């Protein structure tokens, strides 16, 4: 019983911690792309990687202040969305999908390659760049705080708090935007692009703005993750994370402002709980080692996400909160 409570506490920490912030921000960006505009961005993790490395490289390699690193991360993600959007936004939806997933994978390979090692430190990654930010913490970074049965470091608490603040700001921004005339045009593009074009709107420009905005939100997600873990390594930014963010978005409900937030909390709780729970069962010998070893449990997370994505889209594409009519399920 104590172990079960412990597993719930660990899952709860993950559902409220920086991991949830990371996926929530990725999913808020995707919500802008997929939920409101109908763009299939399958490379959201690339924006996050640029955000994280923007800070890491600026601070450690170029010796710039932390805040300039944030600006550089955002600028890099804007450049990436322009590069991806220019050729593909005029084409059918699945072209953007193919190009973004290819770009995400290509960028990751580039960042971990030998030639990029002088800048990104290759597969070793960069660490110790978050000191400047963690020092601002109002909580004592050397103390441990107990919250709901779990312990948090002061720095961890600080980064998480700022992360949730960012989530709140971006939710507010998205809420204001989608109620504005701009939001109505963007949603109309999702429903019928040709009709919007016939009304004289520049569909291409609106799509591009949406792509840039969602990408920047994703970049902030990557920054939170990099600062919270204190390291930036290209292999943290596997493309499977993009699809975890999609699962978060669809679970919470696409085209709902708070959908990604709820989705992130619920999904991370489920994933972490099964993770801890399964490890417990294996340690106690309830699941035989031959069937599933504790090293396999980490992979099981993505198996669950895969099953979850399939089941959601087949049986409940609107997720917890969504409105089925508002979820873009059919491309031209």
């Amino acid at each position, binding site marked *: 019983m104590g172990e079960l409570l412990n597993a719930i506490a660990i899952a709860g920490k993950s559902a409220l911690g920086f991991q949830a912030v990371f996926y929530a921000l990725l999913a808020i960006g995707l919500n802008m792309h997929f939920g409101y505009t109908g763009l299939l961005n399958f490379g959201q993790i690339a924006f996050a990687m640029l955000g994280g490395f923007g800070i890491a490289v600026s601070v450690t390699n170029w010796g710039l202040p932390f805040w300039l690193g944030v600006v550089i991360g955002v600028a890099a993600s804007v450049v990436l969305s322009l590069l*991806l959007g220019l050729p593909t936004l005029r084409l059918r939806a699945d072209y953007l999908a193919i*190009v973004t997933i*290819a*770009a995400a*994978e290509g960028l990751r*390979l580039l960042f971990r390659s*030998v030639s990029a090692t002088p800048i990104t430190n290759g597969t070793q990654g960069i660490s110790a760049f978050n000191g400047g930010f963690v020092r601002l913490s109002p909580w004592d970074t050397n103390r441990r705080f107990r919250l709901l049965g779990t312990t948090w470091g002061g720095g961890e608490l600080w980064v998480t708090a700022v992360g949730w603040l960012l989530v709140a700001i971006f939710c507010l921004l998205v809420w204001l935007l989608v109620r504005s005339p701009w939001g109505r045009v963007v949603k109309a593009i999702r429903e019928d692009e040709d009709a919007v074009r016939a009304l004289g709107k520049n569909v291409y420009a609106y799509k591009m703005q949406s792509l840039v905005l969602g990408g920047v939100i994703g970049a902030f997600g990557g920054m939170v993750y990099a600062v919270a873990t204190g390291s930036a390594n290209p292999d943290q930014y596997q493309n499977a994370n993009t699809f975890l963010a*999609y699962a978060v978005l669809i679970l919470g409900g696409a085209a709902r402002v708070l959908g990604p937030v709820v989705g992130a909390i619920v999904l991370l709780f489920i994933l972490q709980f099964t993770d801890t729970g399964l490890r417990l069962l294996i340690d106690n010998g309830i699941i035989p080692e031959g069937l599933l070893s504790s090293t396999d449990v980490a992979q099981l997370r993505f*198996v669950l996400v*895969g099953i979850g994505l399939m089941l959601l889209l087949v049986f409940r594409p609107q997720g917890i909160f969504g409105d089925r009519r508002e979820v873009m399920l059919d491309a031209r």
Partner: protein
Amino acid sequence: MTHAGNRLRRRDPGALTGIVGRSRSGPRRGYLVRMLLVAVFGLGLAMLVPGIAQAEGEQLAGTLQTSRSGPIPDVDITVETGDGDEVDSVSSDDQGHWEVDLPGPGQYVVTLDPDSLPDDVRLTGADTRTVTVDPGRRQPVNFSLDDGSRGAGGGNVKAIQLLVDGLRFGLLIAICAVGLSLIFGTTGLTNFAHGELVTIGAIIAWYINVQAGVPLILATVLAMVAGAAVGALSELGLWRPLRRRGTGLVAALVISIGLSLLLRYLIQIIYGGFSNPYGAYQSQRAVDYGLFTLTNRALASIVISLVVLVLVALMLQRTRIGKAMRAVSDNRDLAASSGINVNQVILVVWMMGGALAALGGVLLGLSDQVQWDMGFRLLLLMFAGVTLGGLGTAYGALVGSVIVGVFVQVSTLVIPSDVKYVGGLLLLIVILVIRPQGILGSRARIG
């Protein structure tokens, strides 16, 4: 497609085991390995079965050879302790072999005298190696040697070698991509799980070949049958019911991603994160064809791919089912109203796609070893090929894939080979800017 880097790293230990001339490697790095003929050495056995024969004392040993010049005799090797005291100085024998008995475990510096090498062979790395010898261990020491027979003077030759390697790789991509393109053409589905069909084929063949000891060729045939079954199963069990429910294309696309994640990580759990070779055809020497060299298995891969692709083309062009496939691909409703059983055609397309992907997987595993995510890495290049050729056209997939394969290989002339996939993906973006419908595609499809 992670880990091109990992993969290279993982292969490196192979270089130390002393299996000379095995071009692990494959397609991409193969030429490098062949040219920088690594002189590897020190009895592979000594490393694989440590301490069976030489348990009594520590030794350093190595064999100097390149695959063109053969063993190199009379090369002077000097061994010093970490402090600079000379332990012994020896020359390699007629087999290019040398060994030095050591006073005890510890750190040693091995120096090769470059002046004692034959005129046409030179060192490509440093002439000294610092090695740490564990107690009772026979430590192999290797030096990389270049036999100068090619490489230095031959920019053209290198380009031709890369072209041939690229052709092999491109044909392999084409085999896998034909199914992807036909599935897109007949159902409109962009199948992100197609890479997993490739992996499943390769892994089934690996289990049958290595675990059950069945010859690889028979194992490949069985894997193709299994691949067709997996294709049929996913059509009957998943995609047909979804079409009947009227699931939209975007929903189907995300479902295919879910399926891809599910399968990929299940495979990793079952098969593990290692890369394993097949049980046969691994230690082949490259055969010299004048302008380029090719291992027999690479040649077989090219021939098999060509034959299969010609058969597929003949089938599409001449047979009833092939014509039906093209008809459904062209206009599904019109095909249905002309009395073609669309669902049956789609089922056949899935089975064919599965079987071809399985074959492609085995060929890829033969050159690159079998890995849990090999298919996903290939998937992005398949997309590049299919898009270049024209999404949904069978012949476009062939042409596009071959171009992508060749481009990826030849690009290593100018860019480092660990980022060559990035070149392929950049090509994809450039194509979309210049000619989004692809080489053989029609304007109407691109939206």
